[in-house]
């Protein structure tokens, strides 16, 4: 029965994923969240060799705009050069490595290092070199001292991705079907979409994968967000788990499509949005149909979605849209950055409603996200209990919910743990963690995403 397929076992821990289709069991070894060695392997194999979400083009709208940001532990400058091109540089002086730009954002033609005053243009050339008579009189020398660009940078619908490995496949290949769901969010605004200032920056005492799991986990919604569900009910909106599905988009990307979850500003009205918004929802829907056609309009408008783009981007297309970026800092710490993503040119009253509604749910000050944070911080603390336990069988987390359904080839539900399983399978593949598979997995792979007119309405 047991066709053991141990891939390179990680350290002494042996298999980290235990998948058994006879027993309908899927387990993840808890050292995956704890072990600094696993963390280093992740930074190396995932963050150093995969496309990473850097930021959105609208964060740097004008020539010379820049933001500094850390990805995979590497300080970066994300900027728009004098010609309007989006660029990403390692934020380190080529002379002796000083962090070149020590501001979090701004606008500049030149980045000047304070240490020995080398200056670089915002397209990376070494522009000024004090005392250059002591250096080789050779343009090749200057060229060799240009700012180091991130090896790959590609943009999909304004979402800017970078890779620290020049040999990654094209961005669209990496994104696969996830690209389509990013496009759906980009199509919402008649005049486009933009990120807002007012970025939620916070840090969580938990492993980054717990944040991914939490986002792909519909099972926790009712118990964890009991008080938020209560608030929604009081405002006249009943939450339901029905007709909500999880999709494996391949490549570690995951998607939840939710209908009974919540309303959406401009799309699905609920009483707490008020009457003015009710009328606008009708108008907005007409506008979408005229611009995108009925099918695409329905896809954009009728369902909420949570999209995870492996490994560090989450798009919450819920009451309003939030872009969330994960930055692993240590095995037990994750930095989070979150932007509100809004329609360009929407009326001020709608903008205010959108912000109020969204931040009442998401972020460390919302009525719901703090309970999520509590949950994964509590996991991080709890899983030390069984580390090196007398009985090693205790040191596993269970993610088998819905496996029987999956085995029958049915579409996974958002309240099951299928989206997590597909994430972990991809994770194990990329980090080279040991996986033990027993029994026969389902033959047919489920559809890569909800087909037009299919589930999720």
């Amino acid at each position, binding site marked *: 029965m047991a066709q053991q397929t141990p891939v390179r076992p990680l350290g002494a821990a042996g298999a980290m994923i235990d998948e058994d289709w006879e027993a309908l069991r899927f387990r993840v070894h808890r050292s995956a969240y704890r072990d600094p060695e696993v963390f280093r392997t992740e930074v190396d194999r995932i963050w150093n060799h995969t496309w990473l979400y850097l930021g959105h083009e609208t964060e740097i709208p004008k020539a010379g705009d820049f933001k500094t940001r850390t990805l995979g532990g590497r300080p970066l400058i994300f900027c728009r050069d004098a010609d309007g091109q989006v660029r990403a540089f390692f934020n380190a002086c080529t002379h002796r490595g000083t962090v070149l730009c020590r501001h979090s954002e701004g606008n500049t033609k030149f980045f000047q290092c304070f240490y020995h005053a080398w200056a670089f243009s915002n397209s990376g050339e070494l522009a000024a070199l004090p005392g250059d008579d002591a250096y080789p009189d050779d343009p090749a020398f200057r060229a060799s001292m240009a700012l180091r660009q991130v090896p790959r940078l590609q943009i999909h619908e304004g979402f800017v991705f970078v890779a620290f490995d020049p040999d990654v496949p094209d961005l669209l290949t990496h994104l696969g079907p996830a690209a389509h769901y990013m496009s759906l969010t980009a199509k919402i605004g008649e005049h486009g979409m933009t990120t807002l200032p007012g970025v939620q920056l916070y840090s969580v005492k938990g492993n980054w994968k717990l944040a991914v799991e939490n986002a792909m986990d519909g099972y926790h919604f009712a118990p964890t967000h009991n008080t938020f569900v209560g608030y929604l009910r009081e405002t006249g909106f009943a939450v339901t788990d029905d007709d909500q599905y999880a999709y494996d988009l391949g490549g570690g990307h995951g998607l939840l499509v939710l209908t009974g979850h919540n309303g959406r500003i401009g799309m699905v009205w609920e009483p707490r949005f008020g009457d003015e918004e009710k009328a606008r929802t009708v108008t907005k829907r007409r506008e979408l149909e005229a611009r995108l056609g009925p099918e695409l309009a329905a896809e954009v408008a009728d369902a909420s979605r949570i999209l995870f783009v492996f490994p560090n981007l989450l798009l919450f297309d819920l009451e309003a849209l939030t872009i969330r970026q994960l930055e692993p800092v240590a095995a037990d710490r994750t930095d989070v950055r979150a932007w509100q993503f809004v329609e360009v040119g929407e009326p001020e009253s709608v903008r205010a409603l959108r912000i109020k509604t969204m931040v009442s749910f998401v972020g460390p000050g919302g009525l719901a996200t703090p*309970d999520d944070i509590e949950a994964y911080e509590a996991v991080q603390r709890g899983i030390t209990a069984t580390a090196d336990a007398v009985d090693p069988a205790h040191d596993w987390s269970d993610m088998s919910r819905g496996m029987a359904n999956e085995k029958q080839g049915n579409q996974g539900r958002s309240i099951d743990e299928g989206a997590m399983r597909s994430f972990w399978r991809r994770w194990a593949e990329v980090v080279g963690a040991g996986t033990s598979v027993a029994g026969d997995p389902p033959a047919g792979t489920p559809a890569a995403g909800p087909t037009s007119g299919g589930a999720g309405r």
Partner: protein
Amino acid sequence: MSTTVGSPRGVVKVESREVTRAEVEDFLYREAQLLDEWRLDEWLTLIEPGGRLEVPTTDWAGWDATTAGYFVADDYELIQARVKRLKSRKAHAENPHSRTHRMISNVLLLEAGAETVWISANFLIHRYRDGGAYTYVGRYEHVLKVDPDGLRFRLRRAVPVMESMDPGARLSFIL
């Protein structure tokens, strides 16, 4: 009657009534006590119906909550929902409650409006939970409605001055 921002005074006049720094300080100290003791129903009475509760993000450059992302942008209904939530045992992020210890200082009366006074103050809040200690440093920028017999919040805005919310330092309590 209004004074100019930047020339704070120890006393301002709102309509026919004088508001002193001592009165504002007493009000803020009293509020801090209610929050530290988790007496949230009493705390709610300090907010004028229709009042707002705001916490901008740490990159704040003066944007209001209709144009930028915030941490908290509660209208009065949401403040009530927040209090109701925090009183529930199902507010997991605050069950058990954080222990908080607030210090308020540098109270300034900035400007008097027709029926309000704008004040600022510094805050330092220590929060303890799950064996962790967290420090929140920031500034209050409040608009207080001046009633004949007291003060109430029309706008209660806590502006964090940290660069980001530190590990574990979420805003599950009232900042």
